[in-house]
Structures are given as structure tokens and as C-alpha cells.
């Protein structure tokens, strides 16, 4: 049997979940013997294979129109979609802005910030993606495996990947659950 292909990507997040993935340390060698690690934001190949992968992993929430495209592309190209971390599962820290609206958040960031001079303005180039209400990935595309945590611990990530690599669906419970 060919090794299952695994690809990952990140949306609006802090990259912490990918850092936690790297925290599995030398176990990554054992893992690469079980899986074919394809495109990830931390390897050279950036986009998941056009002919598809077995497992797609997404970190971060959907925060703008570009994130939405990336999430949909991953969903189309993978069989099992994993939402990795609190942002992907719930919306996470970026979702705080939903309580005030994206407009307020942009104003605070680009105009009201203490270090911004009187010229501050919200970028509005047509090339830029449009901010949207912050969404958990499951609000946009179907998610098969939810791995909450901010970030999920390296042990939990290793467990999830090794289960998927061996053709089983991971079941998170007890001490492995940590929503932060």
C-alpha cells in the first residue's frame, strides 16, 4: 500500500499549530516513514497536489475571502480534512473581532493605534482580499477531524497523524482534549 499523502496549509492563525507540529521532534522521522508529507507552509511545495492528497490539515480560521479560497481548495483536494487548533475549530482569537465587527478592528489597527500618525488609513487596494466575519473552518467547508487546542500539544498532533497514517480515525477524549 502506498503511503498516505498529507498536505497542510494555514489561514488566519499565528503559525503556532505548525510550531507545535514540529514539536513532535524526532517522532517526525517515524511519521515520514508512514506518510508522504507533501505541501506545507514550512516546506518548499506550497500548494496541495492537484490530483489530491489523503489528509489535508488546516490551521487558522477564515477571516477573509482569500482564506475561504484556500479552505475550499484544500477541501476539494483532500479526502479527510483536519481542523488543527482553536482558530480552525472555533474561530479562535481572531474571532474576538466578531463581537465588534471587522470595520472596528481595522480602524483600531490602522488608524487608532498609538504608533500610527494622523495619515493612518485602512488599506483598500482592489488586489487585496476582503475581510469577512471570522468563521471556523466548519462554517465554510465540511471538516472530518477536529483537533482543538491553542495550540494542540505535540503529543495530540502526533496521535492524530499516526492514527490517520494507519488508516484509523482519531478519537480525542479525556486528557487529549484541551480547548484552552
Amino acid at each position, binding site marked *: 500500500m502506498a503511503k498516505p499523502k498529507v498536505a497542510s496549509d494555514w489561514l488566519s492563525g499565528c503559525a503556532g499549530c505548525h510550531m507545535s507540529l514540529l514539536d513532535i521532534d524526532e517522532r517526525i522521522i517515524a511519521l515520514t516513514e508512514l506518510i508522504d508529507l507533501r505541501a506545507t507552509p514550512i516546506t518548499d511545495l506550497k500548494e496541495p497536489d492537484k490530483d489530491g492528497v489523503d489528509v489535508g490539515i488546516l490551521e487558522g480560521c477564515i477571516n477573509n475571502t482569500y482564506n475561504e479560497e484556500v479552505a475550499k481548495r484544500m477541501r476539494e483536494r483532500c479526502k479527510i480534512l483536519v481542523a488543527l487548533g482553536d482558530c480552525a*475549530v472555533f474561530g479562535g482569537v481572531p474571532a474576538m473581532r466578531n*463581537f465588534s465587527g471587522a470595520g472596528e478592528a481595522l480602524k483600531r489597527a490602522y488608524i487608532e493605534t498609538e504608533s500610527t500618525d494622523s495619515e493612518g488609513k485602512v488599506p483598500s487596494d482592489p488586489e487585496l482580499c476582503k475581510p469577512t466575519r471570522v468563521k471556523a473552518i*466548519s462554517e465554510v467547508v465540511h471538516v472530518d477531524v477536529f483537533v482543538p487546542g491553542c495550540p494542540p500539544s505535540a503529543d495530540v498532533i502526533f496521535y492524530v497523524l499516526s492514527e490517520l497514517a494507519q488508516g484509523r480515525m482519531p478519537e*480525542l477524549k*479525556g486528557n487529549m*482534549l*484541551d480547548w484552552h
Partner: protein
Amino acid sequence: MVKLNIDGKTVKVLEGTTVLKAAEQAGIYIPTLCAHPQLTPYGGCRLCMVEVEGAGTLQPSCTLPVTEGMQIKTNTKKILDARKFVLTLIFSERNHFCMYCQVTDGDCELQNAAYDESMTHWPLQPNWQPYEVDASHKFFVLDHNRCILCRRCVRACNELVGNFTLGFKERGANSFLVADYGVPLGESTCISCGTCVQICPTGALIDRQSAYQGKEIEVDHHLSVCVDCSIGCQRDVLTRDNRLIRIEGDWDTSLNHGLLCEKGRFEPLAKECNRILTPLVRKDGSLKAATWDEAISAIIEKIKPLTGKKEKGLAVLASSRLSTESLALIDEVFNQGFEAAIVTSIEEDQTSSVAAEIAKELGKPFESKLDVLKDTDVALVLGADLATDHQVAGFFLKRQQASGTKLIVAGTKENRFIDKANLKLQQTKGTSLDLIESLTAALVELRKAKVEDLKAADALYSSSEKTGLAIDSLLKTAEYLSSAKKPVIVYGKGFVSNNNKVALKALLEFAALIGKNGAPLVGVKGQANSMAAAQLMLVKPFKADSVQAVYLALGDEIPTKKLTKDLENVPFVAVHAAYSSQLTANADVVLPAAIWAEEEGHYLNSDGRLQKNVKALEAPENVLDTVTTLQKIAELLNVKTKGDWKSQLLARVSSVEITQG
């Protein structure tokens, strides 16, 4: 007994038991959120749903009473799905994002419930409606965004504390927690007991001091006893890395059942006092840092010549916040060994000493345990301001008013507890004895008691004149008391002030006249170890101008202005104190003392429970506890000590029976 079946297990429980409690007794776990062992079941959160054979829908087990032959299932797929659905709805109601909440990692009952059901996510997002955060209270913050509307805080405020500050407005999804009629908490009738904060299952009510200071998994617990008044509430002291984090009540304790007041819960952490961290000795007119040896030698040098001198000798004064071990050692070293001119406590509240004298005369205890306050239908409170001091005893009474208990309070206009009374006896003139005489006359006038040679009508009229109390109020008091099933009388410092033994004796006689068996009497007594001080006879009057020198074991007590002034003209003053004050600034030698959390020892509370305050913190370097310091002094004075504090304490009859814990 009722027999029922839960998950195939036969369970026998008392009639009236709820299915939830029956399952608990059978060791079957049913998750809950709005239920709490100290509160009346409410049935609001629906997490505890069970399947009952024959019932069309799932039933909340917390409010469902058992019936004979009931068949209950607690873990079918239908129930497990329902639990997840209930939790999903709760999560979707407001902002329950765990990543921006400090109550997490085992501290949040909502999060724990989700973990128990192995929820990896929530299927519904909230509607992103922000709610206000009420940060107006000095000790805690109310974040409405975290509220799950379980009403535990409201029920605790009403049922346990009897304060009725918290309530709910609107219904359904618009339900909103309010203080009074919707004022900020800091401006409300809240008395800062913090029970709501302790009982909140989520991060809706959080303590300011301990927020972000340490979660449950990171702190150490020290089951101890409060030393801020003589109720001696059992409490849990939370520390981390030798730092005080928070004080909580312990729901499982027998005296206060988890309740604490502002003084016991928040004030020890909010105290802003300067610690004394090194011994100080007065040289050339000013206090200079010294070693312990230098400071103690300076004391010994001054006091040793006063050994055995009864005139112009040494006065040894002790705080009644000190442990029994400390107080007994003071008595042993300075009274029995050194034979100082006077050895006494600086207790101003005379309840303990007057009660001890009466007990001595009677030859037996005459007071009841505090438990009688928890189940009474008429309580007469005399000269005790239970809204200011001994507040938890006040909670026991206030919380029963909603179910019909009559609270009669006699006191001056300064007594804040009188506002809570159903019947106010605000005495404008006359003495405590006059009050008891007028109440006795009222009792006789109503033919509820017989007292020889008492012309009730005349006595009632004249005593009403003396006290300024309306005859109608006196008769009503007598009527309530004599028709009560479980009457109780509480007296405090206002009643026995000026060493009023006569009034207390009259009260004893009055209490005996009530009902068939008389009314039990409870004395609330000054500071934490006031009763132990009285047992050790450290309650003598002290006159500063009659002594040459004073040794004051102050511990962490803040001295009164009166004491500071009294000691101003004493030629030599040595103080063992934790905090600097005008008194320590005036002293000749100052020794740094440990505070309550740094020193272990026993305390005798108002109802004679001998309880242990455990050490929760290590004292700073160079700071010594009272016992160690006294031992050092005793050695240099060549006084041998046995340290048998327990037999010293039990050597004489007490006003209330002394019991362990």
C-alpha cells in the same frame, strides 16, 4: 424507603430524594451544571437529563423525586446526544471561547462538562452579541459574556447568604443577571461575601486578586480556619510559590458550609500594610535595625529587674488574634514564671470575659452551639451587629427570613443589622438590664410566663419609659418568642458592654422563661481567640500609668488608636508586631512577627470549637512567630515552660462546651 432501578442497579433511598441524589448514592455519575450540593435544585441547565421508563421525554434528574419501582437510564445514546445538544446550546448563547478566558484547564465546569462528553468542537457559533462587563466591584468582576444563566449566584445570594442582591431580569435568551434593580455591582447592596464568585461554574464572576495568578492545577490548598473573628469559619487558603493567591470557603465543612464574609475572604489579600522585616531597637532617640539577639537582650535588660514586681512593674499585653499556644505560653512565661504586674489581652469586646465569669458562677456551660442559628423560627439578637462583625452568623439568620423566620434585633442606631430585622428594638436610653426587664414584663403580661412579685403591667409601663421602646414592640417580641417552636437568643458586645454581668444573668433567667424548655443562648465573642483568652484569664483591666514597661505581643493585629495613646507615656515599650504602625514607631524595641498564614496554632471560636489554623506560607527571613519568640525570651529569663496549652485551656469551666474541630 423507596426502591428504584438506575442503569440496572437496584437503589434504595429515602422518600423525597431526587433521582440525581439517588444516582450519586449508588455511585452513578450524572453530569450537572446548575445543580449544587448547597442549593435547592433548580432544573435550569438540562444537562442532568435521564430516561425514565414510561415518560415521553427526558427528565431532569436534579428536580425529579424518586418513586417506587422507577426505571432510570443515565447513559443511552439518546441521553448522550441530548447532553451534547444542551452543551452546544449553552456554548452558542454567549461568548464561551475558552482561549480568552482565565477560568480554564479544569477550573471551568462548562469546559469540563464538554470534555466529559468528548466534545471536540461546538456545532453552532454564537450570534456575536457582546454583553457588558461590570468591573465596578472592588473585589470581583462580572463578565456577562461568560454567564450561562444557571442562577447559582442568585440562589447562593438568596438561599445561603440571605442578601437578595442578585436576581434576573427578562426571560429566555434575554435573561440577564442584575444586582438590585439593575445597578452596577459596586453600587449595589452587595456585602462582598464572595459566595457568588465561589459558586460560579464559569468565568462570569472572577476574583480580581487571583485572576491569572494560578489555576487549580497550579496552586496548593491549606484547609484552615479564619482568624478574623470568633466565628472561626473553616476556609481553604490557596497559595502558589509561597504567595497567597485566594481564600475560599470549603462547601464540605460543618460550621460555615463554604460561606465566608468580606473579612475572611477578600480583606486578608487586600490589606495594604507595611511589614516589619527586621528587629528594631531605639538608639539615640530613633529606631535602628538590629539583630534578634541585640533586640531581645535590650528587652531582657529592661524587664528583668521588674521580675515579680506587682507595683510599677511589667505589663504583658497580647492580641486575642494570637493562637492558643501563644496565649497560653504568654500566661505561663509572664504570669506564672515571671510574675509580671499584669498579663492580659487587649480585647475590647467583653462578651467572652463576662460569659466566662457567669460560667464560673454557674459551674457549667450555659451557651449553645452556633448550629442552633441555622434552624430557628424566631431569633432575638441583642447588641450584636451581625452585619458588621461575625457576619456569617448573620447569614445563618437572614437567609431563613424568606421562609418565615422572624428576626428581632435590639441595638443602637449604629447597629447595621437592625435594618434587616422584622422587628426593630432600637433602644434610645436605658441599659441592657432595663431591656431584659421590659421583655420579661411583656412575657408575664401576655401570661406566657410567671415571675413572682412582678406586677407586669406596671413593670412594662415603667421599663418602656426607661428604654424608650414602645410597649407594642415589647409585647410583639414576647409574643413571637413565646409562640416560637425553635426560638434562639444571640447576644454580643453591645449587650454586655461595661462588664455587664447583671444583664447577662437577667438574660439567662429571661431565656429560661421562653416556651417549655427555654431558648438557647449564643454569645458572639470578639476576636478570633477571644474565648481562649478568657479561658486563660487574660482579661484583666490594664492601666498604662501603673506600669514601668510593656511587652506587647501584637501579631498581625492593627493596634487601636486608644491602645497607641495608652502606651505613649509608658517608659519602655517592646512590641512583637507584623505591621508597622504609629504604635511600633513609638516603641523602644520592635520585633518582626509572623502573620496568620505563617504561623500555625489552635483557636477557640464563639461556640467552643477548638480548631487549627494551619501554616500556609513561610514567613520572610528574620521574622519569627510568637511561640518561638516567647521561648527565646523565657530562656533568657530562666523561666521553664511546659507548653501544655491544652490543659491550661481546659483548666476551668467554659461558657460553652469546648469541642474538637
